[in-house]
């Protein structure tokens, strides 16, 4: 019975250092918005960052908070989460979309060559995810409606293989 009520938010920064995101999800504002949306647990994969979030058991009705630095596979965390808040790396974006989980991508504005926002913006335009910055994360959570998201149809490499075969003169079937 306990399990049914458990709604976990999983935050991942990948192999990067993204303190701004960890600080944002650790803020009172964001935790309050998440609690208001019905989430009960917050698990943060904080990577190489130096900001240590404060742990809470959540017994007093507030959000339970836990964190860790790295895990060889975050797949289990993604699977058991009800909402994922991720950095803009294509790996975790597509891993999450393929699981059909609601996703908020937060772009690291401190990166010099910030081409990663291109992908997040495009997928947000196509309504596959929500997209924001550390400063506006609480607004994104408040404004998001999960019903507006469209499922992502995973792509495949067959067109590439076909074109390669055709170019080389192999039967392209």
């Amino acid at each position, binding site marked *: 019975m306990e399990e049914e009520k458990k709604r976990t938010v999983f935050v991942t920064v990948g192999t990067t250092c993204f303190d701004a995101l960890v600080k944002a999800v650790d803020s009172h504002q964001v935790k309050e918005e998440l609690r208001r949306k019905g989430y009960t647990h917050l698990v943060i994969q904080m990577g190489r960052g130096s900001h240590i979030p404060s742990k809470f058991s959540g017994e007093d009705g507030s959000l339970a908070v836990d964190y860790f630095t790295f895990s060889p596979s975050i797949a289990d965390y993604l699977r058991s989460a009800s909402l994922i808040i991720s950095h803009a790396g*294509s790996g975790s974006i597509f891993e999450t979309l393929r699981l059909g989980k609601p996703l908020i991508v937060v772009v690291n504005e401190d990166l010099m060559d910030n081409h990663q926002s291109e*992908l997040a913006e*495009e997928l947000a335009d196509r309504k596959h995810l929500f997209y924001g910055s550390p400063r506006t994360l609480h607004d994104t959570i408040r404004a998001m409606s999960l019903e507006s998201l469209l499922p992502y149809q995973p792509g495949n*490499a067959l067109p590439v293989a076909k*074109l*390669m075969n055709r*170019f080389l*003169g192999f039967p392209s079937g």
Partner: protein
Amino acid sequence: MGEQIGNFCYILPAIVAILMVRVTYVFYWVGKPLQFSKYERVRTLIILGSGGHTAEMLSIVNVLQKDWFTPRFYVAAATDNMSLQKAQVLEEALVPQDETNSNKKLEVAKFMQIYRSREVGQSYITSIWTTLIAVMHALWLTIKIRPQVIICNGPGTCIPLCIAAFVFKIAGLRWSSIFYVESIARVRKLSLSGLLLYKLHMADQFYVQWPKLQRKYPRAQYVGCLM
């Protein structure tokens, strides 16, 4: 002495002229389809770029007709220890269960590392020097691999190998076809590696995963999303 200089005056322009004719000839044939028969095999160099690049590349390798694209040589940056491991897992899954002969597996797939030409965040000035070292290493790998097909998708790791392959084409030592697939993360602008290969006409086939990019770079072909 004067005679030697005189000879030199003839020889140098001749060499330059021959080289220019050869380079023009190579550029003329880049991008022209080949005619392998279905009974032939092509030595395939697969460049793994780490992280998301590797994931996209392995999704391509997954659907390639393995009987044609064989043997397969996987190359990853020396600083990247995950990519070759992932490729190895994919190759091991291809070996039929009842066949415990590991020698056969080793024949069709080989795994190698290459010096990285540019680390993330390295300045463009120092990366000229490191690229030079990487090109020397790439030439050595190209001698060993003698690829007929090169599949790459960035980042910088693939540039020295593509340059080496191009030197081999001009020297007439080995003809190879370069297939470049721009990363799914590039929606509006090409990556530096992609832009180089596109502008220098070094890729025989140039694939992009978003329609916006295809409109901007008309020689590219749109292939949809890999992931």
